[in-house]
């Protein structure tokens, strides 16, 4: 008995150490990025950093506004494309398709998440970019191309989490609604989707996080110009691309400015993460009450 007890304690301790080591890595990274990135922001002035539109590191001019705006544009574009498609797909698979079709389609959609981003980028460059250039004009490398590619990349996140939350809605809700004589679509629209709302919002926020953090595919199709894009057909640079593009060559203040880019990205992603956590927590609470 005593031996078992000791084993139990040992296992617990070992797991605790392992769990903390993961957190420690995160802490080290956070401290590191902030200590490298924040001094230069204050040295040049936070306002200039966040709202300056000139990014010429060789002339010590570090304005991140085009990249911040670029990240937001591209992410917004990805949501405009990904959310309706993803939701439609999730609703179809939970409410309208036969279970057999769902068993086939859901794993296939989740497979989308397993395709490396460089492959998405390559397909974008080879097929999408020339298509945009010849049909819509402009250089092809554009906000639009990046949005479409990212919109497809966030589909699996949105679809699978939305499906989970739609399926988590208690059966009685649907049955009650149908018993009142509503059609399937009315039930979906007025009962199921509102009941699963917090989960669906969480899926969108997570998709947004994926879109804002994606780098490789965006570098390949966005054109990376450091100007605030004037139209969906203009090239654009995101925060992540800014770091990845110039990291290899940067030294001195330029490198610190890239860390500062990382700080801003970090803050944006933390905010998104908090929203996602908050909205999924609300869902948990609701679920308990209803049961």
């Amino acid at each position, binding site marked *: 008995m005593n031996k078992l007890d000791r084993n139990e304690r040992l296992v617990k301790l070992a797991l605790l150490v392992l769990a903390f080591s993961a957190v420690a*890595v*995160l802490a080290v*990274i*956070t401290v*590191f*990025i902030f200590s490298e990135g924040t001094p230069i922001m204050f040295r040049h002035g936070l306002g200039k950093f966040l709202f300056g539109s*000139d*990014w*010429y*590191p*060789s*002339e010590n001019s570090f304005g991140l506004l*085009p990249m911040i705006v670029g990240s937001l544009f591209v992410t917004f574009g990805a949501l405009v494309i990904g959310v309706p498609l993803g939701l439609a797909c999730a609703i179809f698979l939970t409410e309208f398709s036969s279970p057999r079709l769902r068993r086939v389609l859901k794993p296939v959609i989740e497979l989308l998440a397993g395709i490396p981003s460089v492959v998405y980028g390559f397909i974008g*460059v080879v097929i999408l*970019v*020339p298509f945009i*250039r010849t049909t819509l004009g*402009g*250089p*092809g*490398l554009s906000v639009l191309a990046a949005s479409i590619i990212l919109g497809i990349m966030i589909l699996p*996140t949105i679809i699978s989490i939305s499906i989970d939350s739609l399926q988590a809605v208690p059966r009685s809700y649907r049955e009650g609604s149908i018993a009142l004589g509503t059609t399937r679509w009315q039930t979906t629209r007025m009962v199921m989707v509102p009941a699963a709302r917090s989960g669906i919002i969480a899926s969108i926020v*997570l998709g947004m*996080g*994926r879109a804002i*953090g994606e*780098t490789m595919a965006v*570098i390949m199709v966005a*054109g*990376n*110009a*450091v*100007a605030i894009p004037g139209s969906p057909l*203009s*090239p654009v*640079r995101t925060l*992540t691309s800014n*770091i*990845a*593009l*110039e*990291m*290899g*060559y*940067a*030294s001195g203040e*330029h490198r610190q400015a890239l*860390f500062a880019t*990382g700080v801003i*990205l*970090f803050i944006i*992603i*933390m905010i*998104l*993460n908090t929203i*996602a*956590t908050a909205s*999924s927590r609300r869902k948990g609470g609701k679920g308990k009450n209803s049961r």
Partner: protein
Amino acid sequence: MNTMARKTLASAMALLFALSASCSRGPAGRQLTVAGSTSVQPFADRWAEVFMEKHPGLAVNVQGGGSSAGIQAAKSGAAQIGMSSRELKLDEMDLTEIVVARDGLAVIVHPASPLRNLTLQEVKSVFSGEIRNWKILTGQDREIDVVTREEGSGTRGAFQELVMGKGKRISNRAIVEDSNGTVREIVSNDPFSIGYISLGLVNDRVRALSLDGVTASEDTILKNEYPLVRPFLFLTRGPAAGPAREFIDFVLSPEGQDLIRQEGLIPVTAGSPPSGSERRHE
């Protein structure tokens, strides 16, 4: 949630690795680390390959990272030899520089473009964004898709210095790509684009323009007629000694210079002795 945390972590790790890579020191002994410009790297690889065949006891380790990283590495001692494809900046002048080759910069357009020649002034106006439409250059009423390299790139640095000069910036509306190869890829696919790459990398999928009426070729560069020529530099902290000296001597030897000529680079003029091209800044 979980994937997002992982994502944050992954990008942060990438930053960490970049830093640790730039700090790591090569092991001591009969080992030579050459690091820096990705434009010089393929040629340094070729030199190292042949050099190691002749000096079996000496391992030459060629790494990329970019001109700035190479200069940094030479300064810190992380690499015995740094490679740069741009001239040193003022605060980098404490290194000894050796010109090991020269490279032409070609201004390239799509092969289907009617354009054959531009003046340097026109190239400058196109890249600075003063000329935005092909109309006055070729008669086509279509916006120019300017393609440039990222900040910090040696190729961009050389282009800035040779074409744009001090006062003019490359337009921030220009598309930015992070290698010679991707610039060439984009220009070869877009009939309305213009870019610049290393002359040695021009192939039949793009057309190199003649500048001020001078075609871009080894011939015109050797005759000092072609205007866009940049040096490829080896940098050492103090005069090169030991394995670094041996390697540099090989690189500057007729055999070493012949190797890179086959690869499309311009040898440093045969007339001047190897040590004559060595400059020490104080």
